[in-house]
C-alpha cells in the first residue's frame, strides 16, 4: 500500500506541482535585488489558480482509478467516484469564481486565490490518496 501511495504522490502530486516551483524560481530570478521570500509567497506560486487545475486533474485521476479498480466493493467505488466528481466540479466552480473576483475586486489578492484553491487541492490529495490506500488494503 505504502509503495503505491508513494508512487502516486511522486508522479501525480510532486511532479504536478513543478510548474508552481518554476513560477517561484522565475520570480526569484527576475527580482532585483534577489528576494528569496518569493519562493514561499503563495501569491507568486499559486496566485493564478494553478492549484485548482491540478485539483481537477487529481479528481479525474481519482475517478479513473476508482472505475478501473475491480477488487474494491461497489459501494466504496461509487462513493469515491461520486465524491471525487463533486470535488472536481467544486474545483472548476471555485476557479471560475476566483478568476471573476480577481478581475472585479482589487482587494481579492493572489494570496486569497491561493488559499481558496489550496482547500480543494488538499482535499483532493487526501481523497485520492485515501482511495488508493483503501483499494490496496481491500485487494489483499
Amino acid at each position: 500500500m505504502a509503495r503505491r501511495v508513494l508512487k502516486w504522490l511522486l508522479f501525480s502530486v510532486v511532479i504536478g506541482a513543478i510548474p508552481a516551483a518554476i513560477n517561484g524560481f522565475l520570480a526569484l530570478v527576475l527580482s532585483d535585488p534577489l528576494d528569496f521570500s518569493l519562493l514561499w509567497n503563495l501569491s507568486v506560486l499559486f496566485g493564478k489558480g494553478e492549484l485548482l487545475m491540478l485539483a481537477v486533474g487529481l479528481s479525474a485521476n481519482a475517478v479513473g482509478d476508482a472505475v478501473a479498480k475491480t477488487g474494491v466493493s461497489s459501494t466504496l467505488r461509487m462513493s469515491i467516484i461520486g465524491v471525487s466528481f463533486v470535488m472536481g466540479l467544486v474545483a472548476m466552480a471555485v476557479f471560475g469564481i476566483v478568476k471573476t473576483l480577481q478581475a472585479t475586486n482589487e482587494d481579492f489578492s493572489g494570496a486569497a486565490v491561493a488559499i481558496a484553491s489550496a482547500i480543494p487541492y488538499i482535499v483532493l490529495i487526501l481523497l485520492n490518496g485515501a482511495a488508493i490506500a483503501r483499494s490496496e488494503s481491500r485487494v489483499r
Partner: protein
Amino acid sequence: MVQSILMVALILLMIVSVACGVYAVVLLKQALDAEKKNQSSSSELVEEPTRAAQHSDAPSARNRVKVEKVPQMYEASLLEVAETQSNIADAHRALEDTHREVRHQTAAAIAELQRVAAETQINAEEEASKRVSEEFSQYGEVRTRSPNISEAEELESSLTQKDVDRWASRGHRHPQTA
C-alpha cells in the same frame, strides 16, 4: 451585489470541500486500520510456522498441516466419486425401468390395435356377405316372379362382372350359368 453572491458561493464551495475532506480522512483512517489488520494477520501467519519449525525438524507447521490434510481430502474425493457412481447407477436403473415400461405399453397397444383390426375385418366380411346374400335373393325373386323376360334381361345386363365375381366368392352362382 454580484461579488457578495460570488463570495457566498465560494464559502459554500469551501464548506463542501471541507465535508469531502472529512470523508477523505475517514476513508484514509479505514485504509490504515485495514492495513494494520492485514499486517497483524500476516505476521501471525508467519510467526506460527516459525515457532513450529524451531521445535521440530519438519519443513514447517503450515506445510505439515497441508500434508496432513491430503489423506482427508483424498477420502473426501473418494466418497464424492462413490456417491457420483451410485447416482449414475440409480439413473441407469430408472432409465431401464422406463424402457421396459415403454416396451410393455407399446406391445399392449399393438395387440389392442391388432384385435380391433381383426374385429373390424370380421364385421366387414359379415356385412358384405349379408349384403351379397340379400342382393342374390332379390335377384332370384325378380327372376322367378317376373314372366317378363326383358325385365330380367335388363337386370342381368346391369350386373357387372364384379358383382358376379363377388357372388361366386360367396358360393352363389350366376343365374345364367345356374
